[in-house]
């Protein structure tokens, strides 16, 4: 079954780290530059993320994630560079369109911010098994029922996507047109989505029953079949990150008081 997650086990040290450690890293990467209002710090975190991704042997897999947002970043560059209120210093022009320095700098800020978010998320997402991540949250107190909801999405979606081909073929063979003018195509949408919904709802009912009879609503404290990830490295890294976050909060307060 094809997975929707981007995770792949590369047997690297980063894979061994606890999911929570990486979550705290994301929080640090986002909050510290934000609180201290500094783009330089964002760039530092970008550097750290890239380094971690290289150690984790997953740097190449960042490309589709960044690619996804690159269109938006491009549109930001164009629109802010051309039209931002307060654009006074022209930098260069392509034909009649003049790109201004202020707008482009603004776009650069946004770009750095986005890149930081994407890379720190990638550190988590490319090196952590989704079930381990959710289990990590359940261990620290997330409701196991909500944990179930999150984790089952990872499996249910590929299952449903696999049925998409069957449904499309079945409806096509019943004479449904999927190409043509807009109205034709709009009309085709309903007979495609309807069977998906119907069978999902029936499956939902039966699955809910199956969960109930396996003690899903038990008030007992849940135990875990898997062993917990925990290494010395986890503890050290977490301390450093938490320290950085606290330091930035203190820094922010100091700036306010000035």
């Amino acid at each position: 079954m094809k997975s929707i997650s981007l995770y792949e086990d590369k047997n690297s040290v980063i894979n061994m780290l606890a999911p929570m450690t990486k979550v705290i890293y994301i929080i640090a990467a986002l909050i510290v530059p934000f609180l201290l209002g500094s783009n330089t710090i964002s760039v530092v975190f970008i550097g750290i993320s890239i380094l971690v991704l290289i150690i984790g042997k997953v740097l190449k897999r960042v490309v589709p994630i960044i690619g996804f947002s690159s269109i938006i970043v491009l549109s930001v560059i164009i629109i802010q560079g051309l039209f931002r209120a307060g654009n006074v210093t022209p930098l260069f022009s392509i034909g009649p369109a003049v790109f201004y320095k202020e707008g482009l700098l603004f776009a650069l800020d946004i770009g750095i911010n986005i890149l930081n978010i994407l890379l720190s998320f990638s550190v988590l997402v490319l090196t952590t098994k989704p079930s381990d991540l959710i289990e990590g949250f359940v261990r620290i107190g997330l409701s196991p029922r909500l944990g179930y909801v999150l984790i089952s999405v990872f499996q249910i979606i590929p299952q449903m996507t696999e049925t998409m081909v069957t449904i499309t073929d079945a409806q096509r063979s019943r004479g449904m047109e999927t190409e043509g003018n807009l109205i034709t195509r709009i009309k085709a949408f309903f007979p495609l989505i309807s069977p998906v919904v119907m069978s999902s709802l029936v499956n939902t009912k039966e699955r809910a029953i199956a969960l109930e009879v396996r003690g899903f609503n038990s008030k007992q404290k849940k135990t875990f079949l898997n062993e917990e990830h925990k290494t010395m490295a986890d503890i050290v890294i977490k301390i450093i990150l938490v320290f950085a976050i606290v330091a930035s909060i203190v820094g922010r307060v100091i700036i306010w008081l000035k």
Partner: protein
Amino acid sequence: MKKNSMWSLKLNTAALVLIPAAVGINYLGKLFAGLLKLPLWLDSIGTCLAAVLGGPIVGAICGAVNNIIYGLTMDPISTVYALTSAFIGIAVGVCAYKGAMKNVKGAILTGIIAGLVAVVISTPLNMRFWGGTTGNVWGDAAYAWAIANNIPAFLASALDEVIVDAPDKIVTLLIVFGIYKGLPKTLTGLYKNDQEIESLD
């Protein structure tokens, strides 16, 4: 028979299992829209349907989970818009609870409300992260036009978002209405905790 408030946080098992299925329906809706090259996202059919079947809380969780999973598997920025999806779920759930989804007019109204909610929540997010644009060609063109005409960035961004979301949500809610009307009662009654066991003794 006591009717639980629509804001009850106690979700039964069926409602919980509905959520991943609804996220799957969101996914497939988007895939089918892409397959048919329709000019709409149609990626919140599941969330809206879940909100109609299970109420605003189910809708909210569904919307949030949808974006969180999307963020973890494809596009991290989606995670931020979990807020928008959650509020769309709440809005549709409230409208459905008040009886709006009983006819086509009500469905259109619900779609408009959902679209407005999306604009109100997403615009500040768009401003904070992207400077106001959305990445959608038509919406951003409108943004560019507005900025060029000295309209404040905030309003320009809101206009961008309206163009992106309003038609999509209206069509989505019409589709949800069509689906909901065709569902047997045995499937629709399972998700709310509003029934009591009667005694036959």
